[in-house]
């Protein structure tokens, strides 16, 4: 059976079967196609409670949906309107897990600028609450390990290794981790992002300081990339820190 205006029906709600028996009646043939309803049939209150009862998630109950947060959020304003902290709060609070899952591709995009938290008239710790929602989703396998978490790990490793971060290395290392092939100079094996397969945006980004002839900045970065500076006595401290963080479960 054909569906008119197919574009109006989401793919996941269309059920097509070669043979179909409903209540003991064989309806194969004409009636082999079912469109599942859009109706919300229940709330997943266990999910909602898990979020609201975790120490960082408590303030979720305070939200009154004014959307001060979303109006302030750079990710919503400049990137994708499907990223909407107010809406995530509403969905999580009623346990509308399938709706959250529909946004699994954007929900981790928070850049932790904390504008939402600083402005919320109800004192919701929005940024923290969103992280709790993410964790609860990840725990249930509703969302893959999200790229921002992967980045956090990469960042942490860099800090653990050197006691500090080095912008160029962090950026280029992360770009490589995303699967881009960067050209490396043959001697020091350091990436040279201006040539080769580096993505266009990266080339443009690297060209900016060159164009503006910010010589000091260029020299400093080049020096840091070549001779990676470390915090003094870092090696000793690093072992203690790593052990402590492992015990806390902070490196998971």
């Amino acid at each position, binding site marked *: 059976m054909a569906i008119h205006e197919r574009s109006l029906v989401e793919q996941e709600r269309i059920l097509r079967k070669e043979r179909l028996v409903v209540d003991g009646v064989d309806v194969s043939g004409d009636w082999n196609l079912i469109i599942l309803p859009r*109706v*919300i*049939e*229940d709330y997943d209150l266990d999910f909602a409670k898990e979020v609201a009862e975790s120490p960082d998630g408590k303030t979720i109950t305070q939200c*009154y949906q004014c959307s001060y947060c979303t109006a302030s959020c750079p990710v919503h304003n400049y990137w994708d309107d499907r990223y909407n902290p107010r809406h995530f709060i*509403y*969905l999580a*609070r009623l346990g509308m897990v399938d*709706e959250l899952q529909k946004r699994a591709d954007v929900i981790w995009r928070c850049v932790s600028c904390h504008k939402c938290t600083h402005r919320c008239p109800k004192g919701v710790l929005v940024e923290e609450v969103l992280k709790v929602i993410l964790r609860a989703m990840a725990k249930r396998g509703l969302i893959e390990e999200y790229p921002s978490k992967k980045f956090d790990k990469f960042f942490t490793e860099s800090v653990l290794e050197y006691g500090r971060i080095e912008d160029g290395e962090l950026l280029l290392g992360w770009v490589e981790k995303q699967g881009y092939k960067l050209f490396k100079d043959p001697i020091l094996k350091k990436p040279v992002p201006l040539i080769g397969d580096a993505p266009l945006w990266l080339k443009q980004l690297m060209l900016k300081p060159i164009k503006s002839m910010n010589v000091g900045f260029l020299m400093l970065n080049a020096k840091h990339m070549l001779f990676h500076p470390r915090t003094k006595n870092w090696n000793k401290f690093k072992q203690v820190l790593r052990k402590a963080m492992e015990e806390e479960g902070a490196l998971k």
Partner: protein
Amino acid sequence: MSSVLVVGAGPTGLAAARGLAKLGIKTILLEKDSELGGNPIKNHYHTLIPRKLKPSQVLGPYIREVQESKNVTLYLNTELVSCEGEVGNFKVGLSNGKTETVGAIVVATGFEHFDPKRKGELGYGLYPDVITNLELERMFSQEGKLYRPSNKQLPKRVAFVFCVGSRDRQLGVTNVHCCRYGCALSGLQGSEIREHYPDVDVFCYYMDVRTYGTWEYPFYWAPQEEYGVRYVRGRIAEITYSPADGRLRVKHEDTIVQRPAEVPMDLVVLVLGMEPSEGTKKVAKILGLKQDKDSRFLVPSDESGSNIVSNKEGIFIAGACKGPIDIESCLSEGEAAALEAAAVINTKVGV
């Protein structure tokens, strides 16, 4: 000395009669029912907003003073049937056969709770577990426990359906107003449920949450933040029953998610609107008082800045006969009406 007639012995009428009696003015207090106190007493309200006191705490002292005052003549089970004359000399006929002469009249005939049977789609009267917020008050105040009428068990989930009989043109132009108390009372009832039964989940289905003024914190923020009452945006359009699990379904569109929803509930509480009482409509006719053309509530005179002064000289209107109002404001309006009436009959007020 001329006396004053007060029609209605709810909070407003009691406050007016008590005020007049204190000023030493002879007062006739009419009440069509057999007891004093109006809706809060008759319908066994449990806790009053905004001070969370019991009706006996708020109205008890008024009732006692009125009953004990030698200046008040009380006629229970009595209605106003006729009125002639003018300010300073009204001849009023009462349903008990008496005729009295009074200098001024205070109308405090109040409101009536909306009859939810008029919204058939909400299943009231059809499904025992669909109850009114009045019945919930009675459950608390008379029986001291929460239960589903169908099986006497504790519900797992309770839904409050806001604006039943309010803000509704479908009922005719008479019910376009907001009940003013419903959101706040639901916040309070929801909090009471959560306080005593922390395992019961409570949902409020709203279009707007109208907890104005200082009511915002205690009746909206606290229910959410301190008691975990959940607010869902969408007006319940239909209530159905599922024989398979014996639970109700509240049908609505979640307007934030923009999806239709049919969520299971064990007990559904309809938040009833307010309408002018039969008494208010009757008295308006007898006294020739101006009414709002849609709602039929009484409206004050445009000639006066005071909202107590009616279009008839010497007749004052106070409380819920003019529209939804909270009990404490009723008391204040009753007192204001007493003052106006006292001034009209030109009584010297001794200190």
